[in-house]
């Protein structure tokens, strides 16, 4: 589009808007605690329909972006502290804590970056929540945590924190392929009363506004995410369910096959962006 026309258009609309500007700084970089750079924009992998990958962080207002820059300002962090205590506390008939087998939680470095991952022993695709519950039920003799519960979200945040800054690297080939392909099909299938697919908003309209919300690419590298809207950590499947409901479609079950497949596909769409530790979003 003609540069002059663009400038005039932008100028006149801005002039009408009482001088208030978009508060987001889409060119800002994120460094957490002054020492951990986060890749919030990167070139997409070759197979990817998009050219550039953008973390959801890029689309938020600058005040929201600031909340993630310091672990003493990030409202998701007290929940990470709760999980750190749970990590060291024995639970279940075996009288073991996570720490008894896994030692310090730093041993979880790299885990979040490759989730979901095909579990060779179980012969099926496993999400982080499934690995956690598998340990609890089969090795600790403890009860499984609710798949989208606050306790699970906190532990996913603690484990995710150990991979903070590392690039997402979810496998899409080999045994992961059928799940990835099923997820891809779900991503592009229009459903529900509003006949929207994930792609309708997150691929075709990211950067635009839905009412006043700034649409992102729908990446999940930042999960679990502290949402200002409900003031708590939210898990991937809980958000999938919420998004599907928001488009007035019948939602799948968190922890069910469809959302597992969708998670494989959506997670891989962020390959290259950093794991963010608990992120902060709208």
């Amino acid at each position, binding site marked *: 589009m003609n540069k002059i026309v663009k400038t005039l258009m932008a100028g006149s609309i801005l002039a009408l808007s009482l001088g208030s500007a978009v508060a987001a700084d889409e060119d800002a970089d994120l460094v957490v605690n002054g020492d951990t750079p986060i890749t919030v924009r990167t070139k997409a992998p070759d197979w990817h329909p998009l050219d550039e990958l953008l973390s959801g962080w890029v689309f938020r207002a600058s005040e929201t972006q600031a909340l993630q820059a310091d672990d003493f*300002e990030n*409202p998701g962090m*007290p*929940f990470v*502290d*709760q999980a750190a*205590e749970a990590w060291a506390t024995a639970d279940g008939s075996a009288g073991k804590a996570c720490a008894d087998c896994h030692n310090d939680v730093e041993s979880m470095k790299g885990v979040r970056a490759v989730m979901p991952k095909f579990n060779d022993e179980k012969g099926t695709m496993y999400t982080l929540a499934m690995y956690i519950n598998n340990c609890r039920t089969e090795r600790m003799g403890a009860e499984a945590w609710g798949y989208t519960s606050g306790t699970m979200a906190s532990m996913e945040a603690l484990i995710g924190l150990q991979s903070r800054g590392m690039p997402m690297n979810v496998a899409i080939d080999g045994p992961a392929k059928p799940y990835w392909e099923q997820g891809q099909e779900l991503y592009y299938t229009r459903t529900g009363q509003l006949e929207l697919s994930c792609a309708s908003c997150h691929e075709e309209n990211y950067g635009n506004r839905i009412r006043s919300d700034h649409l992102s690419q729908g990446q999940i590298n930042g999960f679990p995410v502290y949402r200002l809207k409900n*003031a708590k950590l939210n898990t991937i499947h809980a958000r999938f369910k919420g998004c599907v409901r928001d488009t007035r479609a019948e939602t799948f079950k968190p922890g069910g096959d469809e959302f597992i497949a969708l998670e494989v596909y959506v997670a891989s769409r962020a390959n290259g962006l950093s794991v963010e530790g608990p992120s902060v979003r709208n």
Partner: protein
Amino acid sequence: MAKIKPRVKAPKSVAAGEVFTVKTLINHTMESGQRKGKDGNKIPRQILHTFDVTYNGAQVMTATQHGAISANPYVEFQMKVNESGTLTMKWLDDDGSTYETSKDIAVG
């Protein structure tokens, strides 16, 4: 209520009289008393109504908070000290509970 975990960022050592920033964060739903439950009735208020900061027993800052303070309240303030000591932070809950944490600060 789930385990309350205060998070405080304060320097370990400062020069006498040097102004420094303290960041405090604590998880709490801060139920305002405005929200309605599934039965249509208002959920009773339960917030951290007071946040009290002292240094070696002397009052530094006291915050009286109301229902409009967001969940998982964050309070950032600035102060200075002239001697080494302990910075104590207390949060008082409507239900009578007190949550407390402290940080030692060296002046040298």
